[in-house]
Protein backbone atom coordinates (compact mmCIF):
# COMPACT_ATOMS: atom_id res chain seq x y z
CA UNK A 1 0.00 0.00 0.00
CA UNK A 2 1.23 3.47 -0.81
CA UNK A 3 1.17 6.30 1.66
CA UNK A 4 -1.71 7.97 -0.14
CA UNK A 5 -3.77 4.77 0.06
CA UNK A 6 -3.22 4.49 3.80
CA UNK A 7 -4.09 8.15 4.25
CA UNK A 8 -7.33 7.81 2.30
CA UNK A 9 -8.41 4.81 4.34
CA UNK A 10 -7.49 6.60 7.55
CA UNK A 11 -9.50 9.70 6.60
CA UNK A 12 -12.48 7.56 5.55
CA UNK A 13 -12.35 5.64 8.83
CA UNK A 14 -12.13 8.78 10.98
CA UNK A 15 -15.04 10.33 9.08
CA UNK A 16 -17.01 7.11 9.62
CA UNK A 17 -16.38 7.18 13.39
CA UNK A 18 -17.14 10.89 13.68
CA UNK A 19 -20.44 10.34 11.85
CA UNK A 20 -21.47 7.13 13.64
CA UNK A 21 -21.49 8.74 17.10
CA UNK A 22 -24.00 11.57 16.53
CA UNK A 23 -25.77 9.31 14.01
CA UNK A 24 -26.62 6.76 16.71
CA UNK A 25 -28.45 9.42 18.72
CA UNK A 26 -30.15 10.82 15.61
CA UNK A 27 -31.52 7.36 14.77
CA UNK A 28 -32.74 6.81 18.35
CA UNK A 29 -34.36 10.25 18.35
CA UNK A 30 -36.09 9.42 15.03
CA UNK A 31 -34.32 12.39 13.49
CA UNK A 32 -32.47 10.62 10.69
CA UNK A 33 -33.85 12.98 8.07
CA UNK A 34 -32.51 16.03 9.85
CA UNK A 35 -28.97 14.90 8.94
CA UNK A 36 -30.01 14.93 5.29
CA UNK A 37 -31.33 18.47 5.73
CA UNK A 38 -28.17 19.64 7.48
CA UNK A 39 -25.87 18.08 4.90
CA UNK A 40 -27.55 20.00 2.08
CA UNK A 41 -28.28 23.30 3.75
CA UNK A 42 -24.68 23.87 4.88
CA UNK A 43 -23.86 24.66 1.25
CA UNK A 44 -24.66 28.42 1.47
CA UNK A 45 -22.67 28.51 4.73
CA UNK A 46 -19.69 26.94 2.97
CA UNK A 47 -19.94 29.33 0.01
CA UNK A 48 -20.27 32.44 2.16
CA UNK A 49 -17.53 31.17 4.44
CA UNK A 50 -15.35 30.64 1.39
CA UNK A 51 -15.98 34.22 0.18
CA UNK A 52 -14.79 35.47 3.55
CA UNK A 53 -11.86 33.15 4.23
CA UNK A 54 -10.81 32.09 0.69
CA UNK A 55 -9.80 28.78 2.26
CA UNK A 56 -11.96 25.64 2.15
CA UNK A 57 -10.22 24.24 5.22
CA UNK A 58 -10.42 27.27 7.46
CA UNK A 59 -11.92 26.64 10.93
CA UNK A 60 -13.99 29.81 10.47
CA UNK A 61 -15.57 28.35 7.35
CA UNK A 62 -16.41 25.19 9.26
CA UNK A 63 -18.07 27.20 12.04
CA UNK A 64 -20.01 29.40 9.59
CA UNK A 65 -21.24 26.36 7.71
CA UNK A 66 -22.13 24.58 10.94
CA UNK A 67 -24.15 27.65 11.89
CA UNK A 68 -26.20 27.20 8.72
CA UNK A 69 -26.86 23.66 9.91
CA UNK A 70 -28.20 24.96 13.24
CA UNK A 71 -30.31 27.57 11.41
CA UNK A 72 -31.82 24.72 9.38
CA UNK A 73 -32.83 22.90 12.55
CA UNK A 74 -34.27 26.08 14.09
CA UNK A 75 -36.24 26.87 10.91
CA UNK A 76 -37.59 23.32 10.67
CA UNK A 77 -38.71 23.46 14.30
CA UNK A 78 -40.22 26.91 13.86
CA UNK A 79 -42.31 25.87 10.86
CA UNK A 80 -43.33 22.67 12.61
CA UNK A 81 -44.40 24.59 15.73
CA UNK A 82 -46.96 26.58 13.77
CA UNK A 83 -48.85 23.30 13.60
CA UNK A 84 -49.62 23.88 9.92
CA UNK A 85 -47.29 21.19 8.57
CA UNK A 86 -45.62 18.08 9.97
CA UNK A 87 -41.90 17.71 10.64
CA UNK A 88 -41.01 15.86 7.43
CA UNK A 89 -42.79 18.51 5.37
CA UNK A 90 -40.96 21.26 7.26
CA UNK A 91 -37.64 19.54 6.51
CA UNK A 92 -38.62 19.23 2.85
CA UNK A 93 -39.40 22.95 2.74
CA UNK A 94 -36.30 24.27 4.46
CA UNK A 95 -33.28 22.49 3.08
CA UNK A 96 -33.94 22.77 -0.67
CA UNK A 97 -34.32 26.53 -0.23
CA UNK A 98 -31.05 26.89 1.64
CA UNK A 99 -29.31 24.48 -0.73
CA UNK A 100 -30.54 26.39 -3.77
CA UNK A 101 -29.26 29.65 -2.31
CA UNK A 102 -25.87 27.94 -2.17
CA UNK A 103 -26.20 26.70 -5.76
CA UNK A 104 -27.07 30.22 -7.01
CA UNK A 105 -24.20 31.76 -5.07
CA UNK A 106 -21.76 29.31 -6.67
CA UNK A 107 -23.23 29.84 -10.17
CA UNK A 108 -23.07 33.64 -9.88
CA UNK A 109 -19.45 33.53 -8.80
CA UNK A 110 -18.34 30.49 -10.76
CA UNK A 111 -15.33 32.26 -12.18
CA UNK A 112 -13.80 33.31 -8.88
CA UNK A 113 -14.80 30.40 -6.70
CA UNK A 114 -12.91 27.18 -6.73
CA UNK A 115 -15.94 25.18 -5.74
CA UNK A 116 -18.58 23.25 -7.60
CA UNK A 117 -21.82 21.55 -6.65
CA UNK A 118 -20.70 18.09 -7.75
CA UNK A 119 -17.77 18.22 -5.39
CA UNK A 120 -20.01 19.26 -2.52
CA UNK A 121 -22.52 16.50 -3.13
CA UNK A 122 -20.15 13.66 -3.89
CA UNK A 123 -16.82 14.74 -2.47
CA UNK A 124 -13.59 13.28 -3.75
CA UNK A 125 -11.72 11.24 -1.24
CA UNK A 126 -9.07 10.32 -3.78
CA UNK A 127 -7.83 13.93 -3.88
CA UNK A 128 -7.73 14.34 -0.09
CA UNK A 129 -4.04 13.36 0.27
CA UNK A 130 -2.98 16.11 -2.19
CA UNK A 131 -4.01 18.95 0.10
CA UNK A 132 -1.23 18.89 2.73
CA UNK A 133 -0.99 20.70 6.02
CA UNK A 134 2.40 22.41 6.31
CA UNK A 135 3.63 23.58 9.68
CA UNK A 136 6.75 25.77 9.36
CA UNK A 137 7.61 24.09 6.12
CA UNK A 138 7.16 20.54 7.40
CA UNK A 139 4.52 18.28 5.85
CA UNK A 140 2.44 16.83 8.72
CA UNK A 141 -0.19 15.05 6.63
CA UNK A 142 -3.36 15.77 4.66
CA UNK A 143 -5.44 18.72 5.89
CA UNK A 144 -8.69 16.69 5.92
CA UNK A 145 -7.07 14.20 8.24
CA UNK A 146 -6.32 16.94 10.77
CA UNK A 147 -9.75 18.54 10.43
CA UNK A 148 -11.75 15.36 10.87
CA UNK A 149 -9.32 14.14 13.54
CA UNK A 150 -9.89 17.30 15.60
CA UNK A 151 -13.67 17.05 15.20
CA UNK A 152 -13.54 13.39 16.22
CA UNK A 153 -11.52 14.12 19.38
CA UNK A 154 -14.05 16.79 20.41
CA UNK A 155 -17.00 14.49 19.62
CA UNK A 156 -15.57 11.63 21.68
CA UNK A 157 -14.81 14.02 24.55
CA UNK A 158 -18.38 15.33 24.54
CA UNK A 159 -19.80 11.82 24.27
CA UNK A 160 -17.85 10.60 27.30
CA UNK A 161 -18.70 13.71 29.34
CA UNK A 162 -22.40 13.84 28.50
CA UNK A 163 -23.28 10.19 27.77
CA UNK A 164 -25.70 9.93 30.68
CA UNK A 165 -27.39 13.25 29.82
CA UNK A 166 -27.73 12.31 26.16
CA UNK A 167 -29.17 8.94 27.09
CA UNK A 168 -31.81 10.24 29.49
CA UNK A 169 -32.88 13.13 27.25
CA UNK A 170 -33.12 10.83 24.24
CA UNK A 171 -35.16 8.23 26.10
CA UNK A 172 -37.35 10.53 28.19
CA UNK A 173 -37.10 14.26 27.55
CA UNK A 174 -39.74 15.01 30.20
CA UNK A 175 -37.75 13.28 32.93
CA UNK A 176 -34.53 14.93 31.75
CA UNK A 177 -36.18 18.35 32.00
CA UNK A 178 -37.55 17.67 35.47
CA UNK A 179 -34.11 16.51 36.64
CA UNK A 180 -32.53 19.72 35.39
CA UNK A 181 -30.85 18.39 32.21
CA UNK A 182 -32.25 20.86 29.71
CA UNK A 183 -33.37 18.83 26.68
CA UNK A 184 -33.03 21.99 24.56
CA UNK A 185 -29.32 22.40 25.40
CA UNK A 186 -28.65 18.72 24.69
CA UNK A 187 -30.70 18.84 21.50
CA UNK A 188 -28.84 21.84 20.11
CA UNK A 189 -25.56 20.41 21.36
CA UNK A 190 -26.19 17.27 19.34
CA UNK A 191 -27.29 19.35 16.34
CA UNK A 192 -24.08 21.41 16.58
CA UNK A 193 -21.92 18.29 16.69
CA UNK A 194 -23.85 16.83 13.73
CA UNK A 195 -23.44 20.05 11.76
CA UNK A 196 -19.74 20.45 12.49
CA UNK A 197 -19.12 16.79 11.64
CA UNK A 198 -21.05 17.16 8.39
CA UNK A 199 -19.05 20.21 7.34
CA UNK A 200 -15.77 18.61 8.35
CA UNK A 201 -16.60 15.47 6.41
CA UNK A 202 -18.33 16.84 3.31
CA UNK A 203 -15.09 17.99 1.70
CA UNK A 204 -13.68 14.50 1.87
CA UNK A 205 -16.74 12.35 1.26
CA UNK A 206 -19.52 14.66 0.06
CA UNK A 207 -22.91 15.53 1.47
CA UNK A 208 -24.68 12.33 0.41
CA UNK A 209 -22.16 9.97 1.95
CA UNK A 210 -22.19 11.93 5.20
CA UNK A 211 -25.88 11.07 5.56
CA UNK A 212 -25.19 7.41 4.80
CA UNK A 213 -22.35 7.28 7.32
CA UNK A 214 -24.51 8.84 10.02
CA UNK A 215 -27.61 6.72 9.55
CA UNK A 216 -26.68 3.32 8.08
CA UNK A 217 -24.18 2.12 10.73
CA UNK A 218 -26.53 3.15 13.56
CA UNK A 219 -29.55 1.54 11.89
CA UNK A 220 -27.52 -1.65 11.40
CA UNK A 221 -26.30 -1.67 15.00
CA UNK A 222 -29.87 -1.10 16.24
CA UNK A 223 -30.81 -4.50 14.81
CA UNK A 224 -28.10 -6.27 16.75
CA UNK A 225 -28.21 -5.01 20.32
CA UNK A 226 -30.40 -3.79 23.12
CA UNK A 227 -27.64 -1.87 24.87
CA UNK A 228 -26.88 1.73 24.00
CA UNK A 229 -23.13 1.52 24.64
CA UNK A 230 -22.86 -1.58 22.47
CA UNK A 231 -24.95 0.12 19.80
CA UNK A 232 -22.40 2.94 19.69
CA UNK A 233 -19.48 0.51 19.49
CA UNK A 234 -21.16 -1.54 16.73
CA UNK A 235 -21.99 1.64 14.76
CA UNK A 236 -18.37 2.73 14.92
CA UNK A 237 -17.13 -0.72 13.83
CA UNK A 238 -19.59 -0.91 10.93
CA UNK A 239 -18.53 2.58 9.86
CA UNK A 240 -14.85 1.65 9.83
CA UNK A 241 -15.52 -1.68 8.09
CA UNK A 242 -17.51 0.02 5.33
CA UNK A 243 -14.92 2.77 4.92
CA UNK A 244 -12.05 0.35 4.41
CA UNK A 245 -13.88 -2.32 2.42
CA UNK A 246 -15.51 0.45 0.35
CA UNK A 247 -12.11 1.87 -0.47
CA UNK A 248 -10.90 -1.49 -1.79
CA UNK A 249 -14.13 -2.05 -3.69
CA UNK A 250 -13.55 1.30 -5.42
CA UNK A 251 -9.93 0.36 -6.07
CA UNK A 252 -11.01 -2.93 -7.62
CA UNK A 253 -13.87 -1.45 -9.68
CA UNK A 254 -11.97 1.75 -10.44
CA UNK A 255 -15.03 3.68 -9.24
CA UNK A 256 -15.90 6.51 -6.86
CA UNK A 257 -14.69 5.83 -3.32
CA UNK A 258 -17.64 7.63 -1.73
CA UNK A 259 -20.08 5.63 -3.83
CA UNK A 260 -18.37 2.34 -3.00
CA UNK A 261 -18.38 3.07 0.74
CA UNK A 262 -22.10 3.82 0.58
CA UNK A 263 -22.65 0.59 -1.33
CA UNK A 264 -20.83 -1.34 1.39
CA UNK A 265 -23.00 0.35 4.05
CA UNK A 266 -26.09 -0.73 2.14
CA UNK A 267 -24.85 -4.31 1.74
CA UNK A 268 -23.91 -4.48 5.41
CA UNK A 269 -27.36 -3.32 6.46
CA UNK A 270 -29.01 -5.80 4.12
CA UNK A 271 -26.90 -8.66 5.48
CA UNK A 272 -27.71 -7.80 9.09
CA UNK A 273 -31.35 -7.16 8.25
CA UNK A 274 -31.54 -10.70 6.90
CA UNK A 275 -29.30 -12.56 9.32
CA UNK A 276 -29.37 -10.70 12.66
CA UNK A 277 -29.84 -13.28 15.42
CA UNK A 278 -32.93 -11.72 17.02
CA UNK A 279 -34.41 -8.95 14.90
CA UNK A 280 -33.27 -10.29 11.48
CA UNK A 281 -35.95 -11.36 9.03
CA UNK A 282 -34.78 -14.97 8.85
CA UNK A 283 -34.54 -15.28 12.63
CA UNK A 284 -38.00 -13.78 13.01
CA UNK A 285 -39.53 -16.17 10.48
CA UNK A 286 -37.74 -19.16 12.01
CA UNK A 287 -38.80 -18.13 15.50
CA UNK A 288 -42.40 -17.69 14.42
CA UNK A 289 -42.41 -21.18 12.99
CA UNK A 290 -40.86 -22.61 16.16
CA UNK A 291 -43.25 -20.70 18.36
CA UNK A 292 -46.19 -21.99 16.39
CA UNK A 293 -45.02 -25.55 16.99
CA UNK A 294 -44.37 -24.90 20.66
CA UNK A 295 -47.72 -23.26 21.25
CA UNK A 296 -49.35 -26.27 19.61
CA UNK A 297 -47.29 -28.61 21.77
CA UNK A 298 -48.37 -26.83 24.93
CA UNK A 299 -51.98 -26.75 23.78
CA UNK A 300 -51.80 -30.49 23.23
CA UNK A 301 -50.10 -31.20 26.57
CA UNK A 302 -52.61 -28.99 28.37
CA UNK A 303 -55.43 -30.92 26.78
CA UNK A 304 -53.95 -34.15 28.14
CA UNK A 305 -53.50 -32.58 31.55
CA UNK A 306 -57.09 -31.41 31.67
CA UNK A 307 -58.66 -34.67 30.55
CA UNK A 308 -58.27 -37.84 32.57
CA UNK A 309 -60.92 -39.76 30.68
CA UNK A 310 -59.24 -42.36 28.45
CA UNK A 311 -61.61 -41.68 25.54
CA UNK A 312 -60.40 -38.07 25.46
CA UNK A 313 -56.82 -39.25 25.21
CA UNK A 314 -57.18 -41.78 22.42
CA UNK A 315 -54.92 -41.05 19.45
CA UNK A 316 -57.76 -41.02 16.93
CA UNK A 317 -59.92 -38.93 19.15
CA UNK A 318 -57.16 -36.35 19.53
CA UNK A 319 -57.11 -35.85 15.79
CA UNK A 320 -60.80 -35.08 15.69
CA UNK A 321 -61.09 -33.25 18.92
CA UNK A 322 -58.32 -30.70 18.80
CA UNK A 323 -59.28 -30.21 15.18
CA UNK A 324 -55.82 -30.41 13.67
CA UNK A 325 -54.85 -31.92 10.35
CA UNK A 326 -53.24 -35.38 10.46
CA UNK A 327 -49.79 -34.08 9.54
CA UNK A 328 -49.77 -31.45 12.24
CA UNK A 329 -51.05 -33.89 14.84
CA UNK A 330 -48.31 -36.31 13.94
CA UNK A 331 -45.59 -33.64 14.14
CA UNK A 332 -46.71 -32.59 17.58
CA UNK A 333 -47.14 -36.14 18.76
CA UNK A 334 -43.64 -37.03 17.57
CA UNK A 335 -42.14 -33.93 19.17
CA UNK A 336 -43.78 -34.71 22.50
CA UNK A 337 -42.65 -38.34 22.32
CA UNK A 338 -39.11 -37.40 21.40
CA UNK A 339 -38.89 -35.14 24.44
CA UNK A 340 -40.35 -37.84 26.73
CA UNK A 341 -43.32 -35.61 27.48
CA UNK A 342 -45.87 -38.33 26.75
CA UNK A 343 -46.14 -42.07 26.58
CA UNK A 344 -48.44 -43.99 24.29
CA UNK A 345 -49.81 -47.30 25.39
CA UNK A 346 -52.56 -49.08 23.52
CA UNK A 347 -53.28 -45.91 21.51
CA UNK A 348 -53.98 -44.03 24.72
CA UNK A 349 -51.77 -41.00 25.23
CA UNK A 350 -50.63 -40.15 28.77
CA UNK A 351 -48.51 -37.34 30.12
CA UNK A 352 -45.25 -38.46 31.66
CA UNK A 353 -44.04 -36.90 34.88
CA UNK A 354 -41.71 -34.70 32.88
CA UNK A 355 -44.50 -33.61 30.55
CA UNK A 356 -46.76 -32.82 33.46
CA UNK A 357 -44.15 -30.66 35.14
CA UNK A 358 -43.30 -28.94 31.86
CA UNK A 359 -46.92 -28.02 31.20
CA UNK A 360 -47.37 -26.57 34.68
CA UNK A 361 -44.24 -24.44 34.35
CA UNK A 362 -45.08 -23.26 30.85
CA UNK A 363 -48.56 -22.16 31.87
CA UNK A 364 -47.11 -20.45 34.95
CA UNK A 365 -44.74 -18.53 32.75
CA UNK A 366 -47.38 -17.51 30.25
CA UNK A 367 -49.56 -16.19 33.07
CA UNK A 368 -46.87 -14.43 35.15
CA UNK A 369 -44.30 -13.51 32.47
CA UNK A 370 -41.65 -14.13 35.14
CA UNK A 371 -38.27 -15.41 34.03
CA UNK A 372 -37.61 -17.38 37.21
CA UNK A 373 -40.29 -19.95 36.29
CA UNK A 374 -38.57 -21.15 33.16
CA UNK A 375 -34.89 -20.31 33.64
CA UNK A 376 -33.78 -23.87 32.85
CA UNK A 377 -36.19 -24.34 29.94
CA UNK A 378 -34.94 -21.33 28.01
CA UNK A 379 -32.25 -23.14 26.08
CA UNK A 380 -34.63 -25.74 24.74
CA UNK A 381 -37.52 -23.59 23.65
CA UNK A 382 -37.84 -20.43 21.57
CA UNK A 383 -41.16 -19.52 23.05
CA UNK A 384 -39.54 -18.45 26.28
CA UNK A 385 -36.88 -16.22 24.90
CA UNK A 386 -38.99 -13.09 24.89
Amino acid at each position, binding site marked *: MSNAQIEIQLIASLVAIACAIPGTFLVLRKMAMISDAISHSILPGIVIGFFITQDLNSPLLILLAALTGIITVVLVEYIQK*TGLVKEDTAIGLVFPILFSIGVILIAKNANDVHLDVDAVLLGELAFAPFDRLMISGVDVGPKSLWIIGSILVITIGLLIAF*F*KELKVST*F*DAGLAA*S*LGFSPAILHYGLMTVSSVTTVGAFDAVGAILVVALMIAPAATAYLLT*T*NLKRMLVYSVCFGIFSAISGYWLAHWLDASIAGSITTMLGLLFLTVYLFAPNKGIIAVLYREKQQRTEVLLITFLLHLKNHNDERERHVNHLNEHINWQKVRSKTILDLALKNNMISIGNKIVSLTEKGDEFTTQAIDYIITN*EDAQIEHMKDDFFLFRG
Partner: protein
Amino acid sequence: MKQKIAVQVDDLTVAYNYKPVLWDIDLEIPEGVLMAIVGPNGAGKSTLIKSILGILKPIAGSISVYGKPYEKQRSLVAYVPQKGSVDWDFPTTALDVVMMGTYGSLGWIKRPGQKEKKAALEALEKVGMLPFKNRQISQLSGGQQQRIFLARALVQDASIYFMDEPFQGVDASTEIAIINILKALRKAGKTVIVVHHDLQTVPEYFDWVTFLNVKKIATGPVKDIFNDDNLTKTYGINYKVSIQE
Protein backbone atom coordinates in the same frame (compact mmCIF):
# COMPACT_ATOMS: atom_id res chain seq x y z
CA MET B 1 -53.93 23.08 62.67
CA LYS B 2 -52.22 24.73 59.69
CA GLN B 3 -50.46 22.21 57.45
CA LYS B 4 -47.24 23.05 55.64
CA ILE B 5 -47.74 23.86 51.96
CA ALA B 6 -45.74 21.55 49.68
CA VAL B 7 -46.63 23.14 46.36
CA GLN B 8 -48.09 26.56 45.77
CA VAL B 9 -49.36 27.73 42.38
CA ASP B 10 -50.38 31.39 41.91
CA ASP B 11 -52.23 32.84 38.93
CA LEU B 12 -50.83 30.23 36.56
CA THR B 13 -51.77 30.57 32.90
CA VAL B 14 -50.27 28.21 30.31
CA ALA B 15 -50.84 28.41 26.57
CA TYR B 16 -49.91 26.38 23.49
CA ASN B 17 -49.45 28.74 20.54
CA TYR B 18 -51.19 31.49 22.53
CA LYS B 19 -54.24 29.33 23.09
CA PRO B 20 -54.58 29.02 26.88
CA VAL B 21 -54.98 25.50 28.18
CA LEU B 22 -54.83 26.56 31.84
CA TRP B 23 -56.44 29.80 32.96
CA ASP B 24 -55.40 31.61 36.11
CA ILE B 25 -54.88 28.62 38.39
CA ASP B 26 -54.43 29.16 42.11
CA LEU B 27 -53.63 25.98 43.99
CA GLU B 28 -52.19 25.04 47.35
CA ILE B 29 -51.17 21.44 47.90
CA PRO B 30 -50.64 20.69 51.59
CA GLU B 31 -47.77 18.46 52.64
CA GLY B 32 -48.54 14.79 53.16
CA VAL B 33 -51.65 14.43 51.01
CA LEU B 34 -52.35 11.79 48.37
CA MET B 35 -54.07 13.94 45.81
CA ALA B 36 -55.91 13.13 42.58
CA ILE B 37 -56.18 15.65 39.78
CA VAL B 38 -59.35 14.87 37.85
CA GLY B 39 -60.98 16.47 34.84
CA PRO B 40 -62.07 15.66 31.28
CA ASN B 41 -59.66 15.13 28.38
CA GLY B 42 -57.97 18.38 27.43
CA ALA B 43 -58.60 19.86 30.87
CA GLY B 44 -54.89 20.61 31.28
CA LYS B 45 -54.10 18.01 33.96
CA SER B 46 -50.75 16.94 32.48
CA THR B 47 -50.03 20.54 31.54
CA LEU B 48 -50.44 21.57 35.18
CA ILE B 49 -47.91 18.96 36.33
CA LYS B 50 -45.47 19.78 33.54
CA SER B 51 -45.67 23.48 34.36
CA ILE B 52 -44.97 22.87 38.04
CA LEU B 53 -41.93 20.79 37.00
CA GLY B 54 -40.63 23.50 34.68
CA ILE B 55 -41.02 21.32 31.57
CA LEU B 56 -43.47 23.86 30.10
CA LYS B 57 -43.02 27.60 30.47
CA PRO B 58 -46.18 29.38 31.65
CA ILE B 59 -47.11 32.74 30.12
CA ALA B 60 -48.11 34.06 33.53
CA GLY B 61 -48.05 33.13 37.20
CA SER B 62 -45.60 31.65 39.65
CA ILE B 63 -44.96 28.28 41.24
CA SER B 64 -43.14 27.45 44.42
CA VAL B 65 -42.13 24.18 46.01
CA TYR B 66 -41.73 24.48 49.79
CA GLY B 67 -41.55 28.24 49.37
CA LYS B 68 -38.82 28.31 46.70
CA PRO B 69 -38.81 28.13 42.88
CA TYR B 70 -38.81 24.60 41.47
CA GLU B 71 -35.32 25.01 39.97
CA LYS B 72 -33.90 25.25 43.52
CA GLN B 73 -35.92 22.30 44.80
CA ARG B 74 -35.42 19.65 42.12
CA SER B 75 -34.00 17.15 44.60
CA LEU B 76 -37.30 17.20 46.54
CA VAL B 77 -39.41 16.25 43.53
CA ALA B 78 -39.84 13.04 41.52
CA TYR B 79 -41.82 12.72 38.30
CA VAL B 80 -43.47 9.79 36.55
CA PRO B 81 -44.44 10.81 32.99
CA GLN B 82 -47.17 9.08 31.01
CA LYS B 83 -46.00 5.66 29.96
CA GLY B 84 -46.81 6.43 26.33
CA SER B 85 -44.49 9.44 26.26
CA VAL B 86 -41.34 7.37 25.71
CA ASP B 87 -40.12 4.90 23.10
CA TRP B 88 -40.04 1.50 24.81
CA ASP B 89 -37.90 0.10 21.96
CA PHE B 90 -35.00 2.21 23.22
CA PRO B 91 -31.94 -0.04 23.66
CA THR B 92 -31.77 -0.29 27.42
CA THR B 93 -32.71 -2.52 30.36
CA ALA B 94 -35.15 -2.15 33.25
CA LEU B 95 -32.30 -1.57 35.71
CA ASP B 96 -30.80 1.14 33.53
CA VAL B 97 -34.12 3.00 33.30
CA VAL B 98 -34.44 2.95 37.09
CA MET B 99 -30.85 4.20 37.40
CA MET B 100 -31.91 7.28 35.45
CA GLY B 101 -33.76 8.35 38.59
CA THR B 102 -30.39 8.87 40.27
CA TYR B 103 -29.07 11.18 37.54
CA GLY B 104 -30.67 14.26 39.12
CA SER B 105 -28.71 13.97 42.36
CA LEU B 106 -25.51 13.24 40.41
CA GLY B 107 -25.79 16.42 38.34
CA TRP B 108 -24.02 17.00 35.04
CA ILE B 109 -21.12 14.82 33.85
CA LYS B 110 -20.75 12.66 36.99
CA ARG B 111 -21.55 9.01 36.33
CA PRO B 112 -23.61 6.60 38.41
CA GLY B 113 -21.61 4.10 40.47
CA GLN B 114 -22.20 1.21 42.86
CA LYS B 115 -24.22 3.34 45.29
CA GLU B 116 -26.68 4.35 42.57
CA LYS B 117 -26.91 0.77 41.33
CA LYS B 118 -27.72 -0.48 44.81
CA ALA B 119 -30.44 2.17 45.23
CA ALA B 120 -31.92 1.19 41.85
CA LEU B 121 -31.96 -2.51 42.77
CA GLU B 122 -33.74 -1.70 46.04
CA ALA B 123 -36.35 0.34 44.18
CA LEU B 124 -36.88 -2.56 41.74
CA GLU B 125 -37.37 -4.87 44.71
CA LYS B 126 -40.02 -2.53 46.18
CA VAL B 127 -42.13 -2.67 43.02
CA GLY B 128 -41.61 -6.42 42.66
CA MET B 129 -39.55 -6.11 39.49
CA LEU B 130 -36.17 -7.37 40.66
CA PRO B 131 -36.40 -10.59 38.59
CA PHE B 132 -36.72 -8.42 35.46
CA LYS B 133 -33.75 -6.15 36.04
CA ASN B 134 -31.85 -7.24 32.94
CA ARG B 135 -34.83 -7.40 30.60
CA GLN B 136 -34.84 -5.15 27.60
CA ILE B 137 -37.68 -2.71 28.31
CA SER B 138 -39.68 -3.61 25.19
CA GLN B 139 -39.93 -7.16 26.57
CA LEU B 140 -41.98 -6.00 29.56
CA SER B 141 -45.77 -5.87 29.76
CA GLY B 142 -47.53 -2.51 30.09
CA GLY B 143 -48.02 -2.99 33.82
CA GLN B 144 -44.38 -3.94 34.29
CA GLN B 145 -43.26 -0.86 32.36
CA GLN B 146 -45.37 1.28 34.68
CA ARG B 147 -43.75 -0.37 37.70
CA ILE B 148 -40.33 0.42 36.26
CA PHE B 149 -41.35 4.07 35.97
CA LEU B 150 -42.57 4.00 39.56
CA ALA B 151 -39.27 2.45 40.71
CA ARG B 152 -37.41 5.20 38.87
CA ALA B 153 -39.35 7.78 40.89
CA LEU B 154 -38.80 5.89 44.17
CA VAL B 155 -35.05 5.84 43.63
CA GLN B 156 -35.09 9.65 43.66
CA ASP B 157 -36.13 9.48 47.32
CA ALA B 158 -38.07 12.72 46.95
CA SER B 159 -40.59 14.52 49.20
CA ILE B 160 -43.12 15.20 46.46
CA TYR B 161 -44.12 12.75 43.73
CA PHE B 162 -45.93 13.76 40.56
CA MET B 163 -47.47 10.96 38.52
CA ASP B 164 -49.18 11.31 35.16
CA GLU B 165 -51.83 8.61 34.82
CA PRO B 166 -49.92 5.76 36.49
CA PHE B 167 -52.95 3.47 36.24
CA GLN B 168 -53.40 3.82 32.51
CA GLY B 169 -53.42 0.44 30.78
CA VAL B 170 -52.33 -1.62 33.79
CA ASP B 171 -54.05 -4.71 35.11
CA ALA B 172 -55.80 -4.97 38.46
CA SER B 173 -52.87 -6.53 40.33
CA THR B 174 -50.48 -3.80 39.17
CA GLU B 175 -53.01 -1.14 40.06
CA ILE B 176 -53.26 -2.53 43.59
CA ALA B 177 -49.48 -2.81 43.86
CA ILE B 178 -49.05 0.80 42.73
CA ILE B 179 -51.71 2.23 45.02
CA ASN B 180 -50.21 0.36 47.97
CA ILE B 181 -46.86 1.97 47.25
CA LEU B 182 -48.49 5.40 46.95
CA LYS B 183 -50.27 4.91 50.26
CA ALA B 184 -47.00 3.83 51.88
CA LEU B 185 -45.38 7.02 50.55
CA ARG B 186 -48.13 9.14 52.11
CA LYS B 187 -47.71 7.26 55.37
CA ALA B 188 -44.03 8.17 55.30
CA GLY B 189 -45.07 11.83 55.14
CA LYS B 190 -44.56 12.30 51.38
CA THR B 191 -46.85 14.30 49.15
CA VAL B 192 -48.19 12.43 46.12
CA ILE B 193 -50.01 14.09 43.23
CA VAL B 194 -51.63 11.85 40.64
CA VAL B 195 -53.40 12.64 37.38
CA HIS B 196 -56.30 10.21 37.59
CA HIS B 197 -59.10 9.12 35.28
CA ASP B 198 -61.18 6.58 37.12
CA LEU B 199 -63.64 8.60 39.20
CA GLN B 200 -65.00 5.47 40.88
CA THR B 201 -61.75 4.85 42.73
CA VAL B 202 -61.08 8.42 43.87
CA PRO B 203 -62.68 8.08 47.34
CA GLU B 204 -60.98 4.73 47.89
CA TYR B 205 -57.46 5.74 46.81
CA PHE B 206 -57.09 9.42 47.61
CA ASP B 207 -57.63 11.78 50.54
CA TRP B 208 -57.33 15.01 48.56
CA VAL B 209 -58.69 15.97 45.16
CA THR B 210 -58.45 18.81 42.64
CA PHE B 211 -61.10 19.29 39.98
CA LEU B 212 -59.66 20.87 36.89
CA ASN B 213 -61.11 21.93 33.56
CA VAL B 214 -58.93 24.68 32.09
CA LYS B 215 -59.84 26.57 35.26
CA LYS B 216 -59.60 25.16 38.74
CA ILE B 217 -63.08 24.09 39.85
CA ALA B 218 -62.34 22.98 43.41
CA THR B 219 -59.61 21.56 45.61
CA GLY B 220 -59.75 20.04 49.05
CA PRO B 221 -60.32 16.86 51.07
CA VAL B 222 -62.15 14.13 49.15
CA LYS B 223 -64.72 13.70 51.90
CA ASP B 224 -65.72 17.38 51.71
CA ILE B 225 -65.65 18.23 48.03
CA PHE B 226 -65.93 15.00 46.02
CA ASN B 227 -69.61 15.42 45.25
CA ASP B 228 -72.05 15.55 42.34
CA ASP B 229 -72.01 19.32 42.30
CA ASN B 230 -68.26 19.59 41.60
CA LEU B 231 -68.32 16.66 39.19
CA THR B 232 -71.07 18.32 37.21
CA LYS B 233 -69.19 21.61 37.16
CA THR B 234 -66.03 19.86 35.94
CA TYR B 235 -67.44 17.44 33.38
CA GLY B 236 -70.33 19.61 32.26
CA ILE B 237 -72.92 16.87 32.43
CA ASN B 238 -75.12 15.69 35.21
CA TYR B 239 -72.77 13.42 37.02
CA LYS B 240 -73.97 11.00 39.64
CA VAL B 241 -71.58 8.88 41.60
CA SER B 242 -72.43 7.21 44.82
CA ILE B 243 -69.73 7.81 47.37
CA GLN B 244 -69.35 5.07 49.89
CA GLU B 245 -68.13 6.15 53.27
